[in-house]
């Protein structure tokens, strides 16, 4: 008989048991992240309390909102009838009644398709700039888009934007002709001077002449009919599109060894950054009238856009200068060692790196610029936030409404600003080449 010996050694693995409930799942996460110390417990309770308090106060008001009503008092009656005496609720019917004014201002309603088309084409135009997977040939459309957008928004003869574009062609041709004869510096001067002369003296008559030969025109819309988001987008996106190149040029000018270029850039940047945007807007809207001959009709939106571009460009210049300063000296020397001239070095070596570093700063300048477009209310343009809202509130139907328009306009601004912010993070991730 075999001696039975109890085996004290397991010959199969024990199934792993679940970790204690305090060390797994949501409880662990909460213990670690929310209740890790007495202080954190207090802060968590306070934080949650604050969020709950705010939501409890706002959410019912928003949810009790009325969407179909003709006036504010009608809204109030509906809410009283539904929820009883003394209950308040949002009156979203205002948005339903006036959303077209918020989007288009006083733009003629039968022409709404034009700003809508301009907006869609704008998306098409910026897509190849934003995403490099798209075909490069589309960039040509991006280049002519400003003229297309202008024509769609303001209407009038097609020849004005065409002749304005022609200025760039003339600039290019002039540079190509002068370059072999008189060298780079004179070619640069010719490239700057010829289009300016063209725009000042010849473009207008040329457009008139072309119009009389081949009349193609859209019904004209005047700047005072712009308002609401169409105004914010026009100023915001034009400002963004033009302030980046101008800002890069200013940043390079500030880094330049050439005395006059350097001092002019520094002076411009410091002056513009030293005064509030509203000062510039007032200058554009009021002071210029004293200098221009009476009767000149220098478009107010154009003036505002110019000021906004200059303002944003000064900030972009400083942001880009930060990027340039962050580049190691060796990069500049490497470019020189390769025998690249100044522009080639900037284009191929310096700028790609400097701009990449500057992305967060540039985008936050753009976001700021876009939101600053609401300041045009101070020069009598109807911005969506206050201009249109004041106009809407001044009607007897909607007098007394306060928060609803702000919430609506704020939500739209948030969508676009948040979009820009996410895009900048995407771009940063995509361009990340270091190995940290």
């Amino acid at each position, binding site marked *: 008989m075999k001696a039975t010996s109890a085996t004290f050694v397991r010959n199969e693995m024990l199934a792993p048991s679940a970790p204690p409930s305090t060390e797994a799942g949501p409880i662990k996460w909460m213990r670690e992240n929310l209740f890790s110390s007495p202080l954190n417990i207090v802060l968590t309770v306070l934080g949650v309390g604050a969020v709950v308090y705010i939501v409890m106060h706002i959410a019912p008001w928003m949810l009790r909102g009325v969407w179909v009503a003709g006036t504010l008092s009608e809204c109030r009656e509906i809410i009283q009838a539904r929820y009883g005496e003394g209950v308040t609720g949002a009156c979203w019917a205002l948005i339903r009644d006036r959303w077209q004014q918020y989007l288009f201002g*006083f733009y003629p309603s039968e022409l709404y398709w034009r700003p809508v088309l301009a907006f869609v084409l704008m998306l098409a135009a910026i897509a190849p700039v934003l995403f490099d997977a798209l075909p490069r040939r589309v960039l040509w459309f991006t280049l002519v888009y400003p003229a297309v957008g202008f024509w769609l928004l303001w209407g009038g003869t097609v020849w004005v934007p065409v002749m304005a574009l022609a200025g760039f062609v003339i600039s290019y041709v002039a540079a190509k002709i002068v370059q072999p004869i008189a060298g780079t510096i004179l070619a640069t001067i010719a490239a700057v001077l010829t289009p300016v002369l063209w725009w000042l003296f010849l473009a207008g008559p040329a457009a008139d002449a072309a119009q009389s030969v081949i009349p193609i025109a859209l019904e004209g819309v005047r700047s005072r009919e712009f308002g609401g988001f169409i105004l914010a987008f026009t100023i915001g996106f034009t400002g963004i599109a033009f302030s980046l190149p101008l800002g890069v040029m200013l940043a390079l000018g500030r880094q330049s060894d050439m005395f006059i270029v350097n001092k002019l850039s520094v002076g411009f940047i410091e002056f513009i950054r030293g005064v509030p945007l509203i000062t510039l807007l007032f200058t554009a809207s009021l002071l210029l009238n004293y200098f221009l001959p009476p009767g000149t009709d220098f478009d107010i939106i154009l003036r505002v856009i110019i000021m906004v571009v200059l303002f944003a460009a000064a900030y972009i210049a400083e942001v880009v200068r930060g990027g340039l300063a962050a580049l190691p000296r060796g990069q500049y020397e490497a470019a020189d060692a390769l025998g690249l001239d100044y522009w080639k070095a900037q284009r191929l070596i310096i700028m790609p790196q400097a701009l990449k570093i500057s992305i967060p700063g540039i985008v936050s300048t753009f976001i700021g610029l876009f939101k600053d477009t609401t300041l045009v209310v101070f020069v009598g343009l109807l911005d969506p936030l206050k201009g249109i809202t004041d106009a809407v509130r*001044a*009607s007897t139907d909607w*007098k*007394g409404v306060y928060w609803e328009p702000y919430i609506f306009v704020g939500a739209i601004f948030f969508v676009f600003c948040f979009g820009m912010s996410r895009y900048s993070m995407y771009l940063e991730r995509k361009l990340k080449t270091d190995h940290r």
Partner: protein
Amino acid sequence: MKQSVFLGTLAASTLLAAGAMAQGTSTLDTVKARGELNCGVNTGLVGFAAPDANGNWQGFDVAICKAVAAAVLGDASKVVYIPTTSSDRFEQLTSGKIDLLSRNTTWTFSRDTDLKMDFVGVNYYDGQGFMVRKDLGVSSAKELDGATICIQTGTTTELNLADYFKANNMTYTAVPIETNAEGEQQYLAAACDAYTTDASGLAATRAAFADPENHIILPEIISKEPLGPSVRHGDNAWGDVVRWTLNALIAAEEFGITSTNIDELAASSQNPEVQRLLGTSGELGKMIGLEPNWAMNAIKASGNYGEIFAATIGESTPIGLARGLNAQWTQGGLLYTPPFR
């Protein structure tokens, strides 16, 4: 050197431009040539100027713009409405961007003289008042000693308030606000005991409350606020046109000329002053450089003064203002137009 030449040219051209604006080119001719009247209005004030859902401007001040356009150009729709803020309205006028400012602007000494504007008349006699919650138990502005008061900054109301409290030896705490809409919010949120602004504005504000019965407007009116249209100083011909257009609207009410009976009266009225006003006799239009039927067009634009008042801010509207001081002199009010002769 180059720089100074450039600056010199700039200065010279500025002087030329300013000179041209000061003497030549009368506004009347400019408006006729342009075919449109540039009229400065409020960016939005209930009853006085506001665009509707289709973007058409309406209101008491807007009606003046329409009447002037109708008188000068024969078409009340030929108006470009330029919204002006309380801070840029005078600049807009003096710089020539607008031909006429019709924006509930108080006629004061310094604005008439120092700011180089000409007020052509008064289209609304307003005055500053107070609104309080009923449960505050106050029935007179004299009992507001120590109160917190919501007040719009940068307006004449702010100065009037200080004057009034000083004169009555009382103290107050001001809660500064920027716009009427903010004032309403602050007042409703009980950030202040009383809200003060022009009585017309108080009435409109109270009417828009959810519980107007719980708020009262105190009987004291502490200031004179004659609101009226204004033009640039120095262009008297244009000032005459606007002044007499306003007078024509007031006179039309006095004579019982309304937008409905005007054609009939023009054809049949035996009253010589009505005939002169409507251009069927005399040459009043020619004297101010307008068509003989200028006043007829002006009255047809939105009716006579009384009709405009009733349609925009009168007792049948949600704003519900009584005529009060703004009644005809024959009805105990202050509206009194010089004779059309």
